[in-house]
């Protein structure tokens, strides 16, 4: 099972957990499995068009999946998926 790290702003949707686990061969499958366990989480990850939410960045082991295969990015059981809000950088 892959580990999914949940940002503070979304933790109320997963019972307050900082990380959860879910099965799936792709990011999409992992998110589908997560949504089955935590239904209110889905709208915060996936847009109505079925793509990643505009203000969410998702990383597979620190690589942004938008530059891999988006939601079809493969996931291994040992991978860590980090979900982070898109915020302004410094400077």
């Amino acid at each position, binding site marked *: 099972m892959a580990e999914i790290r949940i940002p503070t*702003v979304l933790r109320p949707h997963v019972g307050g957990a900082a990380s959860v686990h879910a099965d799936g061969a792709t990011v999409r499958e992992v998110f589908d499995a997560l949504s089955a366990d935590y239904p209110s989480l889905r709208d915060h990850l996936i847009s109505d068009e079925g793509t990643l939410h505009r203000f969410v960045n998702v990383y597979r082991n620190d690589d*942004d999946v938008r*530059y891999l295969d988006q939601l079809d990015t493969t996931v291994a059981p040992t991978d860590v998926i980090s979900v*982070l809000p898109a*915020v*302004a*950088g*410094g*400077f």
Partner: protein
Amino acid sequence: MARYDSVLDLIGNTPLVSLAPLTASDPSTAGVALWAKLEGQNPGGSVKDRIAKRMIEAAEADGTLAPGATVLEPSSGNTGIGLAIVCRLRGYPLRIVLPQNVSPERRQLLEAFGVDIVDSPGDEGSNGAIRLAEELAAKAEADGEPVVLLHQYRNAANPAAHYETTGPEILADCPEIDAFVAGLGTSGTLMGVGRYLKEHKPGVRVIAVEPPAGEQIQALRSLDDGYVPPIFDPDLLDRKSIVRPLESIEWTRRLAEDCGIFAGLSSGAAVAGAMRVATEMGTGTVVTLLPDAGWKYLSTGAWTEDLDVVVERAQRIIYF
């Protein structure tokens, strides 16, 4: 050339220095030439001098900014310091909206130039500084005050500065470049340099590294409070990855210890990303950009104190 009419003439034309001591230390990177562009050599001590000068010149040229006006900008420090120098020389009062959780040295430098500092809540990060600056600009407009918000996150002069200077300098000094790695803040560096390199040397890969900033902003109420800079064009990047504080600090230390380069913490993040890319490439040439020097981070203890203590401290300040 050693005589200049103005300190502003010293902005840009920064050196590329080999990071061979780092790449040579590991067989997986020994075949890669890694070069670092030392932006700490700019007069204000960071890459942001370039955009400060360019944004003021653009605002003057289009008539937005004229004598008598106050310049307003949200900044976690470096853009503010660059603007402080330019505004001093051009005669504009400067008001910087500064998150409370920047390193004290950044605040001290702004104070040294007599900048009017407006604090924004630290727990809102740079998002909070942008929000407050926009509110102040709207209020000034309603009150008829001559205040000009430059807004580096949406100002085309930000990437233009890098398209016109940083990018050409890199390609001239390193025509064999295969990949460019830099930190993603406002995205100005990556957008300007990335566009220039892709237009003039197709095939160059442009790679962004970023801190896990979204983990640190406690005041985010919902994802809709998020922010993507309007100048950011995701199609210009080939890859984007996170570098966490521990790795940033470890590579900041390696820069000092192995290369004699005293750089800021975001430089460590850029080198961490560049070394990942070098490992994957095996052979070729990578250029990375070190945004500033280490002076403004001495209070973090990054080079001398226990690593765990420094990491914990770095997580509480904006260092990127």
